């Protein structure tokens, strides 16, 4: 198993290769990408920033917990930081498991823990030139027209 915070594009093929083993019947690759709209506002890109050393440490803890919980070490995760354009991958999680049910549960567990635990922040950039730190805990503003 392996996890890393990276500043270069994520190589999905390489992540898949890391978890391939003949004992596995199911491989699952989750990729989070930059969307062109969020809460009704047109987005042009996202700047990801991180508390790098802790993000690496916390991601490592998540992967270790997942390995113990799901009984496999075939887990490879990368989270990218820096400025990302629309459609670029900010996070990728490759897992493999003997059975598909295990692969789905493991993959979902890792992304949910990652979203709640790793110290990474994103500043969205909008078509009007403004930019804003996202706060997932804030109450949603009323929908814009």
């Amino acid at each position: 198993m392996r996890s890393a915070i990276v500043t270069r594009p994520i190589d999905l093929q390489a992540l898949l290769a890391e978890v391939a083993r003949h004992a596995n019947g199911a491989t699952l690759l989750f990729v989070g990408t930059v969307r062109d709209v969020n809460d009704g506002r047109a987005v042009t890109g996202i700047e990801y920033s991180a508390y790098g050393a802790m993000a690496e440490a916390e991601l490592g803890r998540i992967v270790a917990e997942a390995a113990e919980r799901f009984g496999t070490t075939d887990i490879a995760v990368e989270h990218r930081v820096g400025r990302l354009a629309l459609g670029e991958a900010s996070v990728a999680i490759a897992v493999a498991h003997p059975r598909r049910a295990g692969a789905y549960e493991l993959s979902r567990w890792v992304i949910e823990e990652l979203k709640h635990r790793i110290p990474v922040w994103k500043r969205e950039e909008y078509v009007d030139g403004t930019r804003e730190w996202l706060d997932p805990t804030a109450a949603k503003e009323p929908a814009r027209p």
Partner: protein
Amino acid sequence: MTVTALLFASYADALGREQLSLDLPAGATVRDALERLRELPGGTSLPPAPLVAINLAYARPDAMLSPGDELAVIPPVAGG
């Protein structure tokens, strides 16, 4: 004792800095350090109980600090 405080994202913007040294009495807790940060220019915009980490792991507000600790004040995370 001296601890290093780290600020990130919107908190760093609010206080206009990403890192500072805090001189605290022996036995000071996370809560004490946060009080000190709130006294700085822009410090009132920190929430009452922000997430914090000591030496790369999440910690509670009543955790005791030790000399040389790295105390990070962590805005709501938004990774993925």
